């Protein structure tokens, strides 16, 4: 079974695709638990990590995944590249193409940037984040974390809270969670909630306390200081008062709630330290699962043989 050639988003991924990736990720997790954390599945495959936006976490996670599968990884970051000399995205890809890459893992600030390069490459393309559009491997690692803790998705009540407008994580999570049968509620100040988000089949609210009630999964999003500077909410203090996840508020959710965050977290802005470090938090599990999920995606897209993975 295979996924097709690219992973551009979770929109359009079927439940069987998602299950395949998550099942494969579980097998990859076993590899990471071995004393020798490496298999030859993608030996001699060239993966280009094409990051046009700063990212430490996602890029490191992909790079580790590539190395554990024995792929050759090339890191290309915009700050040190020809992009600064005015080269276009398409020209960058046309040049890299002659290095015979097998896969691009690309992050870009513009939604849909991956669509632009598809006609110019023979390689697989994995979206590591395109503007506020999608970040499919984040949603998949979130799903792996949820499945490990909750056993499945059917009927789960999930709340995503924070800067919805600027989040690629939220869109990928909505598509995936809905496909898998979970219910999704979004919560944010009205200024950080684009109009018409409800058309994605989710509930939209601005009342955090109300929204928390009975939730099985609470996903907090990072609030960036620059949003305040742009006048989207009055102050971080007020934000924390209305939308910060404190221990007190945590009591409103289901007793078995798990707390997630794509990171990096802002302690005392969207989440209290006691919650981030507390027993309900699975934030660091997410980081760990990120490597497994990315190994699974690369493995499935680049067509490593069944036997090699089990090797």
């Amino acid at each position, binding site marked *: 079974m295979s996924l097709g050639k690219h992973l551009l988003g979770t*929109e359009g991924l079927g439940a069987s695709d998602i299950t395949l990736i998550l099942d494969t990720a579980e097998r990859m997790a076993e590899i990471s638990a071995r004393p020798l954390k490496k298999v030859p599945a993608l030996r001699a495959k060239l993966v280009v990590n094409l990051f046009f936006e700063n990212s430490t976490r996602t890029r490191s996670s992909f790079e580790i995944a590539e190395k554990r599968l024995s792929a050759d990884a090339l890191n290309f970051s915009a700050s040190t590249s020809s992009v600064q000399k005015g080269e*276009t*995205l*398409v020209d960058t890809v046309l040049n890299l193409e002659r290095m015979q890459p097998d896969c691009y893992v690309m992050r*870009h600030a*513009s*939604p*849909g*940037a991956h*669509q*632009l390069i598809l006609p110019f490459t023979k390689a697989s393309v994995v979206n590591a984040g*395109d*503007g*506020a*559009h*999608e970040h499919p491997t984040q949603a998949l690692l979130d799903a792996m974390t949820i499945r490990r803790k909750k056993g499945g998705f059917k009927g789960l009540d999930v709340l995503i809270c924070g800067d919805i407008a600027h989040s*690629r994580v939220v*869109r990928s999570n909505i598509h995936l969670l809905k496909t898998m049968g979970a219910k999704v509620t979004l919560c944010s100040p009205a200024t950080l909630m*684009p*109009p*018409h*988000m409800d*058309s*994605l089949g989710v509930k939209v609210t601005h009342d955090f306390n109300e929204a928390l009630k009975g939730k099985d999964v609470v996903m907090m999003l990072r609030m960036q200081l620059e949003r305040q500077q742009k006048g989207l909410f009055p102050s971080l203090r007020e934000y924390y008062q209305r939308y910060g996840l404190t221990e007190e508020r945590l009591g409103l959710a289901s007793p078995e709630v798990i707390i997630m965050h794509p990171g990096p977290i802002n302690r005392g802005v969207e989440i209290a330290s006691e919650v981030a470090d507390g027993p309900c938090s699975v934030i660091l599990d997410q980081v760990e699962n990120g490597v497994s999920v990315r190994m699974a995606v690369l493995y499935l897209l680049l067509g490593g043989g069944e036997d090699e993975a089990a090797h």
Partner: protein
Amino acid sequence: MKLLIKNGRLVDPASGTDETLDLLIEDGKFSAIEKSITARGADVFDATGLVVAPGFIDMHVHLREPGFERKETIASGLAAALAGGFTGVACMPNTNPVNDCGAVTRFILDRAKTSSPVAVYPVGSVTQELKGEDLSPFAELKEAGAVAFSDDGLPVKSSKVMRRALEYAGSMNMAVIDHCEDLELAHGGSMNEGEASARLGLRGIPAEAEVIMIRRDLTLSRMTGQHVHIAHVSTKLGVDVIRVAKKRRVAVTAEATPHHFSLTEDEVASFDSNYKMNPPLRTKEDVEAVIEGLADGTLDAIVTDHAPHAYEEKLVEFDRAPNGIIGLQTAVPLAIDRLVLPDKISLKRMVDAFSCAPARILGLKDKGRVESGISADLTIFSLRKETFLKPQDIKSLSKNSPFLNRKIRGAVVATVIAGAVYPVKD
């Protein structure tokens, strides 16, 4: 020199004509319009089965010269106009230098004269260098040949400047054409704000950014009593307020583009920058409202907003791509395909929107009608033939159009200017 156009269906809204008639043209002018003319020694153009209409005028075109000749030149733009059935075009002043003085207007007219039979009607800028501050020398521009004023591409942001522009242009019986957009509310968006933008994560431009500015212009038009023309109306909200204003006899006219009556925001899901324009593609309800507005005359004219951009300029990330598409060679077929054949508007209304309305709005004498003694400008088209344009069929230097390699019902067969026939090649 005699030309006899035989057996065509003459649709001339100005005289209320819609019947099969022959037209005799002598020395570039109409000399007889009757049933079954015989004229010895005349060249005969057989228009059997075709519609013959007064020459179409596209009153919203970007010819890009001077300054942006990589995108389009006056010669290439006019070649596209001729192939698209247009006998005249009004060109917007956002060139480099801006058309804010007589010298630039004269340059455009000189260049046009030596490169094409298509008439060019330059639009001068409202403000010097499009800065939105000091008025351009309207009288000097008019003297040189400008037919209207606009800062198109940008709104006239200041209400005070817009008021002065309406007063000053109005005193010379000229219209101010405004690109209506509240730039702060639009906030650098690259598509319509709606369900599609919520899904795609692209920043949206709300419909309200258009209607807020239209309302302001209507208020100022009423205050000054002067003619304002609203460019490329794209929203139901916009159509609705213009309809009400017209009922209250505000001196407003308005236009719409083929892309705004043919396409919706859903197209943006492809992230193809040929679906990026300003105003952006809107919702299905907006498309229907624009069509209704064209049908009942709330929107007077159909214009292309022909906006050439070079291949490499459009081949970038969607939110970084420049706005606009070319439209001169697809406008007439799209109007036939999307408006006339589905019975959304009458053929007469379509001809009016392409010829009489622009002539009326711009005050072009002896244009937009068929009458003995005036220059013989005609657009001859078929409702049955189909248009299928490949990139190499496009006369513009730029090929940025979402309508290439698609079948569109309806086709321009020939453009006639001052009695000379320019057939459109299949």
